[in-house]
């Protein structure tokens, strides 16, 4: 471990705000596009199923 304590880990040598915001934004954005893809996939499948059941 490069840090002695958890507090130091959060502080990131006074760069905490930069490091954690960069990671936070990245996680949220990647989670967002993943979720978007999954939701769209489910929507398309549900719509197709409806259409097939109607015919």
């Amino acid at each position, binding site marked *: 471990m*490069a840090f002695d304590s958890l507090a130091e880990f959060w502080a990131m040598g006074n760069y905490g705000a930069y490091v954690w915001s960069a990671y936070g934004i990245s996680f949220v*954005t990647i989670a967002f596009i993943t979720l978007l893809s999954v939701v*769209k996939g489910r929507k398309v499948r549900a719509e197709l199923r409806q259409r097939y059941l109607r015919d």
Partner: protein
Amino acid sequence: MSWLWIHKLGSPKFFYGFSKRFATPIFFSGLLFSLLALGWGLGFAPSDYQQGDSYRIMYIHVPAAMLAQSCYLAMGIAGLVFLVWQMKMAAIFIQAVAPIGAVMALLALVTGSIWGKPTWGTWWVWDARLTSVLLLWILYMGVIALQNSLEEKVLANKATAVLSLVGLINLPIIKYSVEWWNTLHQPASLSLIEKPTMPMEMWLPLVISILGMYLFVAGLTLWRMQTHVLLNEHKASWVKKEVLNNGI
């Protein structure tokens, strides 16, 4: 036994079966690798003697920037494949990968400028690397905007293929021009990443992070392509069977 099976990937049905088997394992192994590498990079890699702990942004910035470029490379090649061989899967690939590439370019920009603040003292520098990623992002947005504005599907596929191909040809020219322009304006800008001085404990998590993110994006792209295949081929009987049998 030969590599001829790769031809079959051009058939939507074969591709669907193939990707259905592999998308999920690829996606989750990528997720695992990325999380592992990011944890390692954040907590265990040593501090940089010059930049302190701010350099840890690298573990997300570098994979994002590399993926943004690789996705465009793949997209441009897919454009060529679509124009030459009319392979439907190539168009589907472009459609599926463009938003992911755009997100990666955007992340590279955002993390780059967050990293730039402690390193350069400002959020934005007209640095060659950042500027070319900005243009890459605009190229992606162009492809997405074109895809969304053209309602006729056949035309939209062809148009995005042409645009990605021209963009791919243009990409090296953009990079070269931006670098040339950058040296003209500001001869000595501090580079964010110094390659030769990086010790093994620093770049090993980076390599794993890059690998993980590539796998993650590959899995996500395959998954997105499956959705587009179903939508495009909804008249085929195998799609009907697939949707009705396997649910959601």
